[in-house]
């Protein structure tokens, strides 16, 4: 694999761009692999990469029903943060943050991880106390966190509504400086290219239609490109976990819901941070191309349709202006929906399953993008060793039966309320 660098850009500029190679091979399936990963999204590709990189398992295929990165990794609002409260979540997402910090260099692919800082506004003293609790936990776990008062917030993001007519005046904010955004597609492509470099076969347009069993054990998959044998199968198809899980006979505590994302026309720099509104559902950042990228709440009913609801569009627009009045004349360019695996506690599932040979990575709710590297790392470990990586020990499927849910929001088991 030829390395990417300023020099390679220079050399190709002089040679008419003729020497670039495919970022990953157009592989066709072999009869069998040591590990088959279903799902060529960020998590599946990262898992394949770390299987090869960390565990030396290179006879791996990633099967993607469409094109890689076509699911949530390419549809999200790209926010990366590690500001989690609960034991289990805090460490996992911070581990992920550390992997993000080295990702471009590890993959030799610029994923444009930009640590521009994220703040969430608080609108009462009580809310700020709650944020302080979170910030305390973050600091005690070695994670950067700050609590800002109203004046500090104003200095940082003067374009928010600090006027007398603000319906929910800004009281302060929690801030994580290392949080930020990355270029979502690049994450999928970067992992694909790096995994391919380790010999992983990335097979697109290959939909899994069933599982091959030997007794109770899963030994392969049926696909639109034929049967493919597998020593182990890893499922990483968040959004559609239930559909694939059902084919394998898994019963899951997952519902699929649509979360919309929005982008405006490209503008000169306006929003330098990731800003989230603590009084309603709205968060925004500005992409390097200049579009304001933002999101809001779930559409709120089970759905596999990748399109959004007009009512939510309206609510998000209202919240956007409530936080940031100057956004009013800026024009919405596109909005779309992504299908989320919602779990009863809004935390993910990474574990071996009750079915031998089948490993599960799903339930990412609306937070899967930031978890991509840690998810791949830990899922690879879980598949390679057959045992959950310590960082994902809390993400077992049995936690709902035993009462060990990790409910950050305390919203309870109705998935659409999470």
């Amino acid at each position: 694999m030829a390395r990417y660098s300023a020099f390679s850009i220079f050399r190709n500029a002089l040679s008419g761009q003729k020497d670039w190679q495919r970022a990953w091979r157009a592989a066709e399936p072999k009869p069998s692999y040591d590990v088959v990963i279903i799902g060529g999204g960020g998590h599946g590709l990262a898992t394949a990469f770390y299987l090869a990189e960390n565990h030396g398992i290179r006879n791996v295929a990633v099967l993607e029903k469409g094109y890689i990165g076509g699911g949530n990794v390419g549809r999200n609002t790209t926010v990366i943060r590690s500001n989690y409260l609960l034991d289990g979540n805090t460490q996992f997402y911070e581990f992920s943050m550390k992997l993000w910090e080295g990702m471009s260099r590890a993959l030799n692919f610029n994923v444009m991880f930009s640590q521009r800082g994220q703040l969430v506004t608080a609108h009462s003293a009580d809310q700020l106390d709650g944020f302080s609790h979170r910030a305390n936990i973050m600091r005690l776990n070695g994670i950067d966190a700050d609590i800002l008062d109203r004046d500090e917030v104003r200095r940082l993001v003067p374009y928010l509504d600090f006027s007398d007519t603000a319906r929910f005046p800004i009281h302060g904010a929690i801030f994580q400086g290392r949080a930020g955004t990355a270029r979502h597609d690049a994450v999928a492509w970067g992992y694909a290219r790096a995994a391919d470099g380790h010999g992983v076969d990335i097979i697109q347009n290959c939909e899994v239609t069933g599982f091959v069993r030997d007794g109770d054990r899963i030994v392969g998959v049926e696909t639109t490109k034929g049967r493919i044998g597998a020593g182990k199968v890893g499922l990483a198809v968040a959004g559609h976990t239930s559909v694939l899980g059902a084919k394998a006979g898994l019963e899951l505590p997952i519902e699929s819901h649509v979360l919309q994302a929005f982008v405006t026309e490209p503008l000169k720099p306006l929003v330098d941070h990731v800003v989230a509104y603590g009084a309603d559902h709205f968060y925004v950042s500005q992409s390097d191309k200049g579009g304001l990228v933002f999101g809001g709440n779930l559409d709120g009913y089970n759905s596999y349709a990748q399109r959004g609801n007009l009512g939510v569009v309206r609510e998000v627009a209202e919240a956007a202006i409530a936080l940031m009045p100057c956004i009013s004349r800026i024009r919405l360019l596109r909005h779309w929906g992504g299908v989320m695996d919602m779990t009863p506690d809004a935390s993910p599932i990474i574990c071996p399953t009750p079915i031998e040979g089948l490993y599960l990575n799903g339930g990412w709710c609306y937070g899967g993008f930031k978890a991509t590297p840690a998810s791949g790392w830990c899922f690879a470990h879980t598949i390679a060793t057959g045992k959950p990586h310590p960082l994902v020990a809390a993400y077992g499927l049995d936690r709902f039966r035993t009462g060990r849910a990790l409910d950050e929001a305390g919203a309870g088991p109705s998935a659409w309320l999470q």
Partner: protein
Amino acid sequence: MSSNQKRLAAGGRISREQPVEFTFDGRRLVGYRGDTLASALLANGVTLVGRSFKYHRPRGIFSAGPEEPNALVTLGTAGRREPNLPATTLELADGMVVESQNRWPSLAFDVQSINSLLAPFLSAGFYYKMFMGPTRRAWMFYEHFIRKAAGLGRAGTDPDPDRYEVRHTFADVAIVGGGPAGLSAARAAAAAGARVALIEQDFLLGGQLLADPSDGVAASWLRQAKAELESFENVTLMRRTTAFGAYDGNVIGLVEQCGQTDPQRAGEARQTFTMLRARSIVFATGAIERPMVFSNNDRPSVMLASAARTYLNRYAVLPGKKVIVATGNDGAWRTAFDYAASGAEVMVADLRAAPPAALTAEAARLRVAVRAGTRIVDLDGGHAVRRTTLAGPGGESQTACDLVCMSGGWSPTVHLTSHLGVKPVYRDDIGGFVPGAFTAGRFGAGSMMGTHSTADAIDDGHRAGIEAASFCGKSASVPAPSKLDLGETATAPLREISSAGRGKAFVDFQMDVTTKDIELAHREGYESVEHLKRYTTLGMGTDQGKTSNFPALVAMAALRNATIPETGATTFRPPYTPVAIGALAGRATGHHFKPIRRTPMHDWHMANGAEMLEVGLWMRPYFYRQSGRDVNEAYVAEMRTVRQAAGLMDISTLGKIDVQGPDAAIFLDRVYANGFAKLPVGRARYGVMLRDDGIVFDDGTTTRLAENRFFMTTSTAKAADVLSRLEFLLDTAWPDLRVAVTSVSDEWAAMSVAGPKSCAILSAAFPALDVSDEALPHMGRLESEWEGRALRILRLSYSGERAYEIYVGATAGGQLWSRLLEAGRAFDLKPYGVEALGALRVEKGHVAGPEIDGRTTLDDLGLGRMAGKRTGFVGDVLRRRPAYLAPYRQRLVGLECIEDGKRLRGGAILFLPGEKPYGHGRGRITSVTFSPERGHYVGLALLAGDVAVEGNEITAVYPMKDETVRARIVSPVFLDPQGERLHG
């Protein structure tokens, strides 16, 4: 330069008697009413309008509609500044201030046009391949410059001074598009008896008919069609209105441009966002012409052929006199003929070896030169084209020109149907994508369905209009539409739209994506259409690739040696054209963002120095300014008042539910963890509800008013959720229970009088009532009337003091509040706010929101004894799950600060003394207050059960303030554990 030098003396649909002044980059120019900004610029000889996104290439006007990728401008100044508007859709208005974009220092001389020279280094996706070192954070350094260079226009940071409206409307049949098909559909549906809404983005109806001469047969058909539609009472014509999105439930999102251009409507909202709910929809959205792809095809004065014809016939602008029309289809020849008839020197370069004889004959008649089997391969000119290079059977030749009109065929406008999930399907016979199968109640008509001639579009619209009306049950007979034959001939589809060249051949003009970028994407394996788009940014501009998606698909199909359907189709996302976020929010901004809930005593609070706090949508007194300088001083003073005399608190925000029916007691027994069936009439009881998963849901008191009637209160925050949950259980789980639950939250004003003097105050306020301990014991209730309204007094305490909750009909709330204060004056009764209320309950060890956080069980909160050995209530089974019973599970304790001069804080993390403060600790402090009784801070905490030993020390760590405080674990009840004060 003279004004309107490119304007013809007559013709067009402009009002020459109504001149309109505007400025472009400071230059004062004049157009006419009926112009767009683009037509007015062209009329004034302005060809250079903007600079491109990446290479800063000079760009002009490319189209005559919303598909415009090039001519983006910034309109207005200060708070009204609006960037990235296509000049082709801006209706010219007096005083418009327009600036070009993406150039510095000026449009004609732009420093960053050097990017064009750097192009080899700025190949598609170059940024993925560099900027990764030397350090981990290197990207942040490079990114700073990239961000500055990217972006199109600059947005203002002032608040928007304009208003927006949201409107709800309804129709039987919505027709999107006011071209021949849409007009015909509207007429048919209306005649059939349906209520019709016709939506047209332009300020004139007519669609492509407006490109025809304004005095021809098309114009007279249009005049007649309009007159007929206007005669229907059941037709609403919506001009200047874009259907930006089609959504589930046949809801169409519309944005109407209102006040901006019509001086008569100056006072109205700038834009109105309409949610149109239609029973059926006819999509008559037309088609968009495609460019041809050749070297330097992006130069100013290279235009779509239909646009050039529109500028000539609709706006009476002749943008060029030496015209090359490059095409491979018949339609573009009409542009050639019209230009020739207007006196221009015209040459047609047709890809086809033998264009139809009828066309060549007409060309000969009009002295239009024809080059068959010929294509444009290159073009010279900086700020305007000067010369083209044509390649034909005879080799290459160069021809001088000042306008190039091109047509690469037509793409049906399938955006809205795509929004609804209708997958576009490729039709080889027309060389474009049309909508696949519609679901019931949705119809398509005209060129968006691939119909090629105006005559067919009219018939097609007629049919669709009748079907759509019939879907709504309206099927009166409809006379046939009047015919219009413009003599269009069916043309072979053009599959080849790309011709290689020497320079940059643009596919996506706005995003500066060239054929070379597509080749590179293919070479590197980004060959699915979605990869292509994401890798090259093709179609990501404000035009959403309306003119670029198909050419790119054709180019990629050729590279992959695949058919077009094999290569894919892209999914269109709403909105069809960009929509101002302000329009979507409508009037729900500022104080109207969310409605405000006020208690009956609201005005008193405001008039008497209350600092208010938002709780949900409610406004509640936080503290009263006369109690202290700030909240910390005030709440302690208010606590003292309650503990020593009496305080008055507005508790109207509590959720209140009337529960009635023969099975009401059974019902409450199931929904509360503690029993209610045996509660005597006239007594109240504190109750806790669980969720199905065994976690505490809400708490409150419920009073038995009669054998079959209860009065339930809930927390302010959960009131709506609790009611809905109760209704769910009654409707779906236990329909056999005869119980009615009704919210009476708004029905009652509620206030609490708490403190040792509360009984005396009640006696003074209600001299006729017996409020003695015998008549009204703790947890007792009293029903009466006051000033003609129902009065209910419950003797309940949250603060730990003797206290009474007084409920009175909401209309008398303010009056009773004042009466109580008056009666209480002699007893030092003072109002207190939410902060003091919270502090009082902490001192008394009552749990509230911070403890009932959606993760705690009854046992965690020390309330397990309430359920005792009961079973059969909601949440009972799952609350017994193993992890909930583990000894290390965090449970409620009290903490008291044992270090002088220090304080506890909510959110502090708890560690054992001497333990290294790292990780999640053993628990956390949930609520604190300064305790005037104890003289130091006390708090409630959730602490691991295995270390929660009363009397032991614990360390509270608060990194955000760099504090470490020693505390002692104590009972959570800091005050009066025997409850004597309740009776004091």
